[in-house]
């Protein structure tokens, strides 16, 4: 098993945390993981992304050139990373912010209105946790238990945020399991 996931969006969308949650969980599950952020001043108000690899084997390059999953939280991210997905790979689109269509026809694509769902939950900041739920609902790459522990780890020091994020995560899972078939854009 090797999953190579690119999370991308703009600063403030919790992109780095998405990657961290998955990485921690992968580690907790005894997998090999790597997490590589974009860094530097260009992040200031600009775009942010991170590359996460979860694998049974030792991780080669932490840079993902051929992603098995791309999570695009805003439009530039979709435009930039769609092409990097392997044939048969997975593309998750935050349809609350991305109105344009994707182009690839050889991959699995889901459009999730994460911001809208987050708004329903009363906090726009949990959009990322919803997306994690979606991802986990679609691909069973890590154990549920590990993910839960991972939330605890990533929100260390901000424990009060954990319940809501777990809730968002569950909502994401529910959302995708209930209506995933309709959303397949293929």
């Amino acid at each position: 098993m090797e999953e190579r996931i690119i999370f991308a969006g703009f600063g403030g969308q919790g992109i780095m945390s998405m990657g961290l949650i998955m990485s921690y969980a992968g580690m907790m599950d005894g997998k090999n993981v790597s997490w590589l952020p974009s860094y530097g001043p260009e992040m200031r108000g600009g775009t942010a992304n991170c590359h996460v690899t979860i694998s049974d084997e030792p991780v080669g390059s932490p840079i993902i050139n051929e992603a098995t999953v791309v999570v695009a939280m805003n439009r530039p991210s979709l435009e930039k990373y769609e092409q990097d997905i392997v044939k048969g790979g997975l593309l998750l689109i935050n349809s609350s912010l991305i109105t344009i269509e994707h182009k690839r026809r050889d991959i699995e694509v889901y459009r999730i209105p994460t911001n809208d769902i987050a708004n329903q939950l009363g906090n726009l900041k949990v959009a990322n946790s919803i997306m994690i739920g979606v991802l986990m609902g679609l691909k069973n790459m890590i154990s549920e238990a590990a993910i839960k522990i991972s939330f605890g780890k990533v929100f260390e020091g901000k424990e009060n945020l954990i319940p809501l994020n777990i809730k968002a995560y569950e909502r994401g899972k529910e959302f995708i399991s209930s209506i995933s078939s309709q959303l397949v854009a293929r």
Partner: protein
Amino acid sequence: MAKVLMKGNEALAEAAIQAGCRHYFGYPITPQNEVTAYMAKRMPEVGGVFLQAESEVSAINMVYGAGGAGARVLITSSSPGISLMQEGISYIAGAEVPCVIANIMRGGPGLGGIQPSQSDYFQATKGGGHGDYKLIVLAPSTIQEMAELVQQAFHIADKYRNPVMILGDGMLGQMMEPVDFDILKKEENKIEEKPWATTGKGTRNKRNIINSLELDPQILEKHNIEIFKKYQKAAKEEVRYEMTNCEEAEIILVAYGTIARVAKNAIEIAKRENIKVGLIRPISLWPFPEEPFKKTKDHVKAYLTIEMSMGQMIEDVKIAVNGQKEVYFYGRVGGMVPEPMAILEEIKKIRGKK
């Protein structure tokens, strides 16, 4: 729990602390700022000293002072900052003061950029400062190895009374991977007595002096030769490398640090296409491992050096190969990272030749 997820920069800092380093001097610079931040937080917790100097020039001279006074001491920076330390590093080597210096390289020359690069190889291995001296240079490729080599670095520095450099790049500094500190060899962290250190004369009957000046050429020559004896010893005892799939390889890649990981991906892809490719990964860049080249030169067709530079380590590869086989180069610079597919292309090109 044993494993923790950490950035390379943080693992560097934590490994140093676990190695008994209680003195850190530095100056902020991207992409190694996490070291500074980590040390600022952690050092007070362990009763150590974190000092943000007014510049890298100052910082390296504080290291000289602290190292000379007997402390295990760490300094970290990135390319332009390391350039500013060259005089100081030469002094430290000349005065035989142990310390660990990490360069988390970024794109150059000049202000350049802040994305990963390996274009300070020459500076690290040949001596960016003046005079005849060597740094022992270690290049980790994973975060776990970062922790491991940092601890070894302190040990080696003390063993030879010489600065040791950890050479990483922005990618290694910024990425996270699990690290298990428990499995590291603890004996490296034992700090031996330093009877030569300036600790105040106390009841010692001889003054201790830390110095690199010697106006008499004959004595200065002797001093140089003494230092090089240590280097000869290091060249025997501190060579570190990893060989992957070299036994039957037709083409052998040579790469260090993070790029060795990219190279491994390229090897996997090549395997799919039935091309046998191996990898020599120097872990000690100085002393540069010549042995693996001797071992492989009979069956290999050519070596392909891959770097995030315009071609620096390739010179050491050429010297090691000594004209026995062709040595090719593929590099990306300025923060661009070689891609596995591009490496495969290069491999194919080489196979096409002759």
